């Protein structure tokens, strides 16, 4: 890596930090201000909420980062090009015989780095923080304890667990129903008032197992390798906020429910995610990297427009994938494929002045 590459990378990361800070700060503040009524109401009940609100805003940041990062990386890269253009640093480089692609190679590298880092955030950080964020959001904004109500999960052998309420902190279920089959294929139903997770099994209170012939027997312990507390959490987030799940969580959901189209689409979307950063940059660069442009502000405006259009297209295709109109691959990667098709005319030189 040459000195110039390192210099361009430094300028890029400086702009990236500024753009991330500005946009994420703006949206965090708008988020808090948008809930100011609820926060005031919670505060009026005597609950000290300042530190909790701050904690909630901080927990939102990784989620906002992962959602915004393709667009922010694009804007930071375009700002880098603009600032170097204004200082007249591109022309000596191009005049010395360096090709356009080689000149912007550090930007491409930087953006790929951001994409990979954000993928790690999506796979590791978001699922780890999701329960804490959900609990805080319920407590601070919705003024109620976080309880998962009307939750269900299933195993690959067809056993289905339905509960009325689940307390994630105490690992305790209430209103337990477990539908299964016995060795002869007959229905079985296990009911319990509550169940608490201890030593790798559910300890049932008032547990009764019913058979299809109407016979019953008391049951105090229930074990199943695929019906554990983490399975309930996964099912909860699959229902209310599947973007918080990692690719491995989504694969597990699909393994237990092969008909889960949304999980299939999101798996492909996760795979496409790092490449989206690179693609958006390659779509935006030709619009701003032009020596004839009087002002690069319209290039930045194009950057915003590309981001918005891309986002809408991705949303529409993912929805079509979840509905079954498109297959999971096209639903999750369709926007990426269309973007690649658009790259060809943009980079072929035909549209350059």
């Amino acid at each position, binding site marked *: 890596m040459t000195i110039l590459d390192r210099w361009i990378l430094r300028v890029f990361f400086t702009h990236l930090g500024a753009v991330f800070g*500005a*946009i994420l700060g*703006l*949206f965090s*503040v*708008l988020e808090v*201000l*948008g809930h*100011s*009524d609820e*926060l*005031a*109401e919670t*505060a*009026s009940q005597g609950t000290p909420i300042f530190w909790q609100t701050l904690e909630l805003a901080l927990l939102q940041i990784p*989620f906002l980062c992962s*959602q*915004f990062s393709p667009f922010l990386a694009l804007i930071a890269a375009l700002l880098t090009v603009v600032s170097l253009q204004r200082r007249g640093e591109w022309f000596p480089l191009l005049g010395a015989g360096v090709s356009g692609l080689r000149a912007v190679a550090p930007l491409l590298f930087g953006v790929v780095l951001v994409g990979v880092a954000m993928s790690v955030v999506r796979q590791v950080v978001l699922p780890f923080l999701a329960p804490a964020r959900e609990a805080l*959001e319920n407590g601070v904004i*919705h003024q*109620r304890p976080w309880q998962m*109500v*009307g939750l*269900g999960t*299933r195993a690959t052998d*067809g056993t*289905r667990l*339905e509960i*009325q309420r689940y307390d994630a902190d105490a690992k305790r279920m209430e209103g337990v*129903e477990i*539908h299964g089959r016995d060795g002869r294929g007959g*229905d079985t*139903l296990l009911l319990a008032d509550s169940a608490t997770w201890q030593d790798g099994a559910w300890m049932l209170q008032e547990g*009764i197992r*019913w058979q*299809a012939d*109407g016979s*019953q027997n008391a049951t105090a312990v229930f074990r199943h390798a695929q019906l554990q507390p983490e399975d309930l959490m996964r099912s909860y987030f*699959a*229902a*209310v*906020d*599947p*973007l918080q799940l990692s690719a491995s969580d989504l694969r597990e959901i699909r393994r237990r*429910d092969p*008909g*889960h*189209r*949304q*999980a299939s689409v999101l798996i492909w979307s996760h795979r496409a995610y790092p490449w989206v950063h690179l693609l958006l940059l390659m779509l935006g660069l030709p619009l701003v990297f032009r020596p004839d442009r009087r002002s690069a502000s319209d290039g930045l405006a194009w950057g*915003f427009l590309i*981001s*918005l259009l891309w*986002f*809408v297209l991705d*949303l*529409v295709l993912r*929805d079509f994938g*979840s*509905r079954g109109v498109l297959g999971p691959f096209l639903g999750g990667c369709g926007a990426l494929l269309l973007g690649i098709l658009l790259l060809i005319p943009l980079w072929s030189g035909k549209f350059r002045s």
Partner: protein
Amino acid sequence: MTRRVPMQGLSKANDAFLGAFPVQFRLQFKSSLQSRLVRASVPRLVLSRSYLREIGRNLALVLGGTVMMAALGSAIKASSLSQGAPLWIPAAMLPLLVANSLPYLLPASLLTAVVLTYGRMAADGEAVAMRAAGIRPARVLLPATMAGILVALISYPLASEGLPELYRQMRELSNRLRFSALENTSPGSSELRFRGLSMTWAKLAEDGSFRDVVLGFRPTSKDRAFTFDPGVLEEESASMAVPLRLRAERATMSLESGELVFGFHGLRGWREVDEGRMWTFANEGPTTVRVDLAALMSQKLRNLKGSAYTSRELRNMLAGKLSPVRREQFRFTLWSRFFTSLTSIPLALLGALLGWRLRRSGTLAAFVGAFSFLLFGYYPLSYFGQTMFSIGVLGPAVAATLPFIGLCGVVLFFALRRDPS
């Protein structure tokens, strides 16, 4: 303005004053100053109009940029909140979310626009030239004042009539969202949940029917469809104290004239009679269950907060019977809408004073400065007033006026301070 009149000779002060402006302005002013029939205040009106136009231009640019950013963020938020919901849900949410953020973006944009205008004015020496010509600084602030008044006149009807309607639409959308899962007869996953009704199946057959179905019904009003779902609407008494549990080999689901129709084949059921006793039933043939969606959707929301009503509705309700708590809440809402709109005027004045100090700092720096002031000054004051009212320390009118008074104080502080230039 272009009438020819005998030139009388201009004073040196006027020369210095005019020298700061572009040629077009100078020609206009010379004609004005030459004419004995034209008042001396005319060039100042031209100036005021010019600065007002510049503020308007900057406001449109800054507001347009921030609304675009808000639209992008709102699109992301709408998508994350409504994963799995039909496309019309996030599409309907997007304009509502953007419009909901306008009350916060408009003051920041106005402040930024005025900072940019007066900053350019200071950087180009126009402010010094005007003061040297004897124009009082308060007179120079007239365009900012006029901009503030105009924004106040726009934002008051927006806050009092437009935003409450948006808020209600969001609540209705949330209510509608609960039913969107039922209306989708080809769900994206092998389960369906709605307010105590849960249906899961092992697989979807080629003919669209569901295989190995487990259906349970336990009525509760506490289920949330999505994360922004407000949750409990009304407390309902459960029509069935005992839950119903069904299993079927095959099931179909269709929507017919506002009814959700389930058809079961090979149905078996469990029903608890009392503690320790259960009876089972089975029907090898078809069993049909109909659910009236229209009746479920017709529930009204009660006890909405003050911001959900327009000002006209609030005044009508205040004229009638209300609990003392609700009465105070509505009064606070009315006062805060009025003073929040009025705050545009001291905000614009503050922008002018800040602009003179910051000079030509750039759009981003101006926006960051403006938003920082709002974030660390105006919004905490507003939140403080709201909290003081909630806990009963301040009355509704005083609590609502707090941010406006605070802002006027800051304006006075900057106005009385000596300009470092």
